[in-house]
C-alpha cells in the first residue's frame, strides 16, 4: 500500500543496505559454527594422528596441486604430518585459547577501566599506572616472568593470554565511560539511586560496547599469533602439539617452498576473524536502536 521510497540521504542510509547483508552474515555464522564443531570433534574427524611423523611423505602439496596425494587433502608438512588433521587440532586449541583469553581479557580490562572512570583520583591513577605498566612492558618479558616462576600448563597459558591486551580494554572503557558518565541518561539513572555497577553495566556498557566489541574481534588474530611467540619461549602450546599460530609460525620458513604449511592456517585465521567481524557488525546493527 505504501511504497518504500525512503527519505534518507547519504549519511542517513537507506533500507536496502540492511537486507543485502544477510547472506554474508549467514556465511560468517556458518563458518564460525563450523569452526566450533571442528574444534569439538577434532579427535573424531581428523583423518590421521596429527602427531604421526612420516619422513617419507614430507611436503606433499594439497590435492589440487601437481604432486598432491588424495589421502592428504591439504598435503603434509615438513615432517610428513597430515596438515588437515593438524588444522583440526589447531582450530580446537586456538579457539579455546583465543576465546577464553579474549573473554578474560575483555572482562578484566573493561572492569578496571570502568572502575578507573568511576572513582577517578587515586584509583584512576593506580589503574592507569597498571595500564601504562602493562603497555610498556614487552609481553615477552611478562611471559618470561611466568616461565621463571611456574610450570608450563594450559590453564596458566590461557591466563597469560587473558592478560594480553587487557590494558587496551581498560583504556577504551575508561575513555568512553568518562564521556558517557556525563551524559544525561547516566546522570538521570543516578538520581534514581542506581548503583554504579548498574549504571555501568546496564547503561554505559551498551553505549560503549561497540568499540569494545570491535576490540574483541581485533584481538582474536593477535592472540593467535601471540601463541607462537610464547611457544618459541617455551610457554603454552609446544611441538608436537599444534595450534593455528604455531602452524603459521613454524611454517614460515617454508612459505616459498611449501606455502600450504603456513598459508592454510593463515587463511583459517583470516576467515575466522573476518567472520567474527561480520557477525560482530551484524550484532552491532541489531543492537543499535538507531537502525530500528
Amino acid at each position, binding site marked *: 500500500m505504501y511504497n518504500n521510497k525512503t527519505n534518507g540521504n547519504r549519511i542517513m542510509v537507506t533500507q536496502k543496505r540492511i537486507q543485502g547483508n544477510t547472506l554474508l552474515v549467514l556465511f560468517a555464522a556458518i563458518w564460525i559454527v563450523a569452526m566450533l564443531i571442528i574444534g569439538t570433534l577434532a579427535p573424531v574427524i581428523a583423518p590421521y594422528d596429527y602427531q604421526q611423523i612420516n619422513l617419507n611423505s614430507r611436503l606433499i602439496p594439497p590435492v589440487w596441486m601437481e604432486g598432491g596425494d588424495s589421502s592428504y587433502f591439504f598435503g603434509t608438512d615438513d615432517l610428513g604430518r597430515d596438515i588437515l588433521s593438524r588444522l583440526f587440532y589447531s582450530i580446537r586449541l586456538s579457539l579455546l585459547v583465543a576465546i577464553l583469553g579474549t573473554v578474560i581479557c575483555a572482562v578484566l580490562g573493561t572492569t578496571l577501566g570502568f572502575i578507573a572512570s568511576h572513582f577517578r583520583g587515586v584509583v584512576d591513577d593506580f589503574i592507569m599506572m597498571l595500564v601504562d605498566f602493562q603497555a610498556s612492558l614487552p609481553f615477552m618479558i611478562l611471559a618470561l616472568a611466568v616461565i621463571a616462576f611456574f610450570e608450563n600448563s594450559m590453564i596458566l597459558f590461557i591466563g597469560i593470554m587473558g592478560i594480553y591486551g587487557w590494558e587496551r580494554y581498560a583504556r577504551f572503557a575508561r575513555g568512553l565511560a568518562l564521556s558517557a558518565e*556525563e551524559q544525561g541518561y547516566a546522570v538521570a539513572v543516578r538520581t534514581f539511586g542506581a548503583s554504579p555497577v548498574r549504571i555501568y553495566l546496564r547503561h554505559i556498557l551498551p553505549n560503549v560496547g561497540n568499540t569494545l566489541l570491535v576490540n574483541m574481534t581485533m584481538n582474536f588474530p593477535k592472540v593467535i599469533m601471540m601463541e607462537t611467540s610464547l611457544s618459541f619461549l617455551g610457554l603454552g602450546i609446544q611441538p608436537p602439539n599444534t595450534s593455528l599460530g604455531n602452524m603459521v609460525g613454524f611454517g614460515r620458513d617454508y612459505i616459498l617452498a611449501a606455502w600450504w604449511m603456513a598459508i592454510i592456517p593463515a587463511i583459517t585465521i583470516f576467515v575466522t576473524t573476518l567472520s567474527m567481524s561480520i557477525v560482530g557488525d551484524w550484532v552491532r546493527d541489531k543492537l543499535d536502536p538507531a537502525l530500528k
Partner: protein
Amino acid sequence: MSTDQNDELLLEIKNLSVGFNGSHKGMPVVRGINLEVRTGEILGIVGESGSGKSVTCFSIIRLLGERGWTEGEVLFDGENLLESSENEIVSVRGKEIAMIFQDAQSSLNPVQSVGRQLVEALELRKDLANNSSVDYKNEAVKLLGEVGIPDPERRMKEFPHQLSGGQNQRVMIAIMLAGNPRLLIADEPTTALDVTIQAQILRLLKKLRKERNMTIILVTHDLGVVAETCDRAAVMYGGRIMEYGPVEEVLVSPRHPYTFGLLSSKPRIDKRSEKLYTIEGVVPSPEKLPKGCPFSERCLYVVGSCRDNSPPLTNEGSRHYFCFNPIEEGTIWTQ
C-alpha cells in the same frame, strides 16, 4: 495582518504521507496531508502531541533519517524536494529552508562550543562568503544578542551543557536564522523560554517576516502564541489535518470539535478551576487508527458516518476543515 498582500505560493504539500519502516507496523504516521504556505506568511501548526507535526517538518527537508519514507509531493518554488538530488537538497537546507528543532538541548553538538556551531552556519552563507569584510564572530555575537542571550560574547565559548534549556533553544534559533532562509520551520521554538523572552523571540520572527519577507511555519502548543503571531493556523490530529484557516476564524470559532476541545483545555490566567478540561480518551496509535475520522473515538459530536468514512474537505471561505458534524458558528469555547 492579512495574507492577501502576497498570494504567491512558496511551499505546497500535496498528499504527503510519511512513515517509518519497522515501527507502527509500517503504517504511516502522517497520512496524506495537503498544505499551502504563501510567501511571507506565518503559518501555525498546532495539534496533539504525537500527531505528526515534527515528522511533517522533517520530511520537508528530508531529514527523516534511516528508516523514514515519504509519499506525495513537497513543492518548494514548484520544485519537488522529495525527488531532488542529494546535492540539490543540501543547497536548499539552511539557505532556503531552515528548521529549528524541537529538542534543542540534544540537537546541539555537545562537544563543540555554541559559537563554533553558529559561526559554521554563517560560513555556509554565500552572501557573506563573498564579502571579505565580514567578521563571522561578530555576526554570531550579534545573532546571539538578537535572540536574547545575555552576555553573548562569553556564551560563544561555552558548550551546550553549560547553558540552560532556554538558552540552548535560543542558540538553536540563532543557528537557523544564520542561514537567512526564505522559509523557516520552527518546531516549538519557544517551549523552554519564559514568556518575556518568548515575546522577544516572536517579535524577532515577526520582524524578520516583515523585513525579509521570511515565511515561517511555526509549530507550537501554545494557542496564545498562535493567536498573537500567526496569520493562519492548521490543526493536526492523528497524522491528518483537521482544520485549516485564518487564525481569527480557527481560534475564535473553531469548526472542528478537536480544535474546540483544545481551546477548552487551556487554563486561563484570570480564572481558576479545580480541574482542567481535557478531551477524554487516548490518542490512537498510527497502526490502530479508526477507518474514518481519527478523532471519532474521542469526539463529543460524533455521528454515525464519522467512524467509517473519512470526512470530506469542507471549504468555507478561506478556512477548510474535515468534519461531518462541525461545531456551529458562535459556540463559545471559553468555559
